[in-house]
């Protein structure tokens, strides 16, 4: 059973290199194989998640080496939540890209890069060794730089250059921190580092924490480090924007930040204050910048910065409610932002533009697409039945309880701003009158994935119903509240 833990990485690595070979015979078959492989990983991660949520975490040492030597892999409820979300959204996006990517050339390489990126993302989620996390982080990052530039238009290349150079700065900081960790403690295993970090001087610990924090905050696009995100996420092909905005920045950035703040540097509570500041600035800046955007994809990208700010605030506040808010918000935002990017992709597929000025009266032309788009927008804006409403509410209550009433007020103001720019977009683009309107709905294979996501946006709030919450979110929150490196039942990590 424990050996299954490496499957989410191994299947994608194998499939990534198998698909170009299949595509030599038949390109349609390659698309079907891509969908089947993502479905296989989705089923595997569902299976693993059920096991982890019922029986507790899985600890595995790669290559059969015993504790101090082998590379520690681990799946606990927190990483399972991210794993399941990633692979659900991936499967839905893969369905979409089989049709959407037809207008590009070299589609088999798209599948290869996409799957290598996912292998990297899943690898980060199962690793418990800091160098292993770094290697998978780079695998995912390099694939994502290439995917941003996939269309090879001038703007896409420009966005990719900015994204690559910024990410290299981040990864240099992280490598430096890893070198320092190894030089000062002689280990790279996170739990062994934990036990020997007590002997480090506070200056060293602060330096390492600062390097790691700024490196991963850059990948999360928290505000002083955000400048690459609007370019990269607005220029990538729609399915890639959806996975980058929906899951990539959360796995590569937020997940590692959660591990750093709650599991690794527990002796440095000041990290939370820094995260809180980053979060407030991201939330305000992203929300205000989104208001003035002309390009719809760029607006969505700024909205991602704003919403990831909420996650950072929840993480900075801490406590049961803060952590619950983070998890709920990343789930709800992942579904709704993926839906919005797929939706604008369908609009682009039919009309050829994403500029708000050139689009009018979409409701008359594409009623079903408009319906799904409105669902996603109301979802992110936090209209009551959707998951985002509850997550924002939880974060606001947590802020008040922790004694930050100012931040709670700012959260409410940004929520209103968010609703404002989405309503403006709906009025000018979706529900306006156009002089001539020919009904031209998007193809069914583009509508189906959007439909699945729209349903998921609607029902993601049920995760908070007490009976379901105890078995899913509460277990992940308990990992963040008190993580133990030694566990008799499932085996020690040290």
């Amino acid at each position: 059973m424990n050996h299954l833990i490496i499957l989410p990485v191994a299947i994608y690595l194998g499939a990534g290199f198998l698909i170009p070979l299949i595509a030599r015979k038949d390109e349609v078959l390659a698309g079907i194989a891509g969908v089947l492989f993502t479905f296989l990983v989705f089923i595997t991660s569902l299976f693993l998640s059920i096991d982890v949520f019922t029986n507790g975490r899985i600890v595995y040492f790669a290559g059969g080496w015993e504790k101090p030597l082998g590379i520690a892999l681990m799946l606990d409820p927190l990483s399972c939540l991210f794993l399941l979300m990633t692979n659900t959204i991936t499967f839905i996006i893969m369905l979409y890209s089989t049709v959407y990517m037809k207008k590009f050339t070299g589609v088999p390489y798209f599948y290869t890069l996409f799957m290598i990126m996912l292998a990297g993302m899943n690898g980060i989620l199962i690793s418990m060794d800091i160098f292993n996390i770094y290697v998978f982080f780079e695998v995912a990052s390099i694939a994502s730089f290439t995917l941003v530039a996939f269309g090879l238009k001038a703007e896409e290349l420009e966005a990719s250059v900015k994204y690559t150079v910024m990410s290299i700065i981040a990864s240099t900081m992280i490598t430096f921190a890893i070198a320092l960790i190894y030089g000062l403690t002689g280990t790279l295993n996170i739990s062994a580092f934990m036990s020997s970090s007590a002997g480090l001087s506070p200056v060293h610990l602060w330096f390492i924490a600062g390097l790691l924090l700024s490196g991963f905050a850059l990948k999360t696009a928290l505000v002083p480090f955000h400048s690459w995100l609007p370019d990269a996420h607005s220029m990538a092909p729609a399915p890639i924007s959806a996975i980058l905005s929906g899951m990539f920045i959360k796995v590569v950035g937020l997940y590692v930040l959660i591990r750093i703040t709650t599991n690794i540097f527990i002796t440095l509570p000041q990290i939370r204050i820094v995260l809180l500041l980053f979060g407030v600035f991201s939330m305000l800046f992203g929300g205000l910048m989104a208001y003035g955007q002309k390009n719809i994809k760029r607006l969505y990208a700024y909205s991602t910065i704003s919403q990831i700010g909420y996650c950072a605030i929840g993480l900075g506040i801490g406590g049961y409610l803060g952590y619950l808010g983070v998890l709920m918000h990343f789930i709800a935002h992942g579904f709704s932002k993926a839906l919005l990017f797929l939706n604008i992709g369908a609009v682009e597929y039919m009309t050829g533009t994403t500029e708000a000025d050139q689009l009018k009266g979409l409701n008359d032309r594409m009623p079903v697409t408009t319906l799904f788009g409105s669902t996603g927008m109301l979802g992110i804006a936090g209209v009551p039945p959707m998951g985002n409403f509850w997550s924002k509410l939880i974060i606001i209550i947590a802020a008040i309880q922790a004694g930050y009433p100012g931040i709670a007020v700012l959260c409410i103001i940004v929520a209103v701003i968010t609703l404002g720019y989405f309503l403006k977009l709906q009025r000018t683009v979706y529900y306006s009158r156009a002089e001539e309107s020919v009904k031209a709905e998007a193809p069914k294979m583009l509508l189906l994935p959007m439909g699945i996501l729209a349903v998921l946006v609607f029902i993601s709030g049920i995760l908070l119903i007490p009976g379901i919450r105890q078995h899913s979110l509460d277990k992940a929150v308990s990992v963040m509240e008190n993580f133990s490196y030694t566990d008799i039942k499932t085996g020690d990590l040290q």
Partner: protein
Amino acid sequence: MIIYILVALMFFTGLYGIIAKKNIIKIIVGVNIVGYVTSLLFVIFGYKWDGIAPILTQDMNYSQFVERAVDPLPQALVLTSIVIDLAFVAFLAALAIRIFERYGTFDIDKIRRLKG
């Protein structure tokens, strides 16, 4: 101690190349330098004066071996990080060629179609 200061100096040289230079090729050189610095730091942590290769032969006793052998793990890590840096540089170079085809320049101040 002086060796760490030199490493820091080299790191800031590379960072200066990435941040302050306007030419993409010079930025790539900066990326290269920064990559070398991190590799160098790893190797320094594993280095021993007058060290021997970490291979245990029959005529050595353990305590002598532990005292003299260099740490092999940083060298394995450096290999990985060199490969990653190579991927970065190769990708950026390919991107720079494409950029030159589209924009006709390497100057990042002139490569500015994305705004707002």
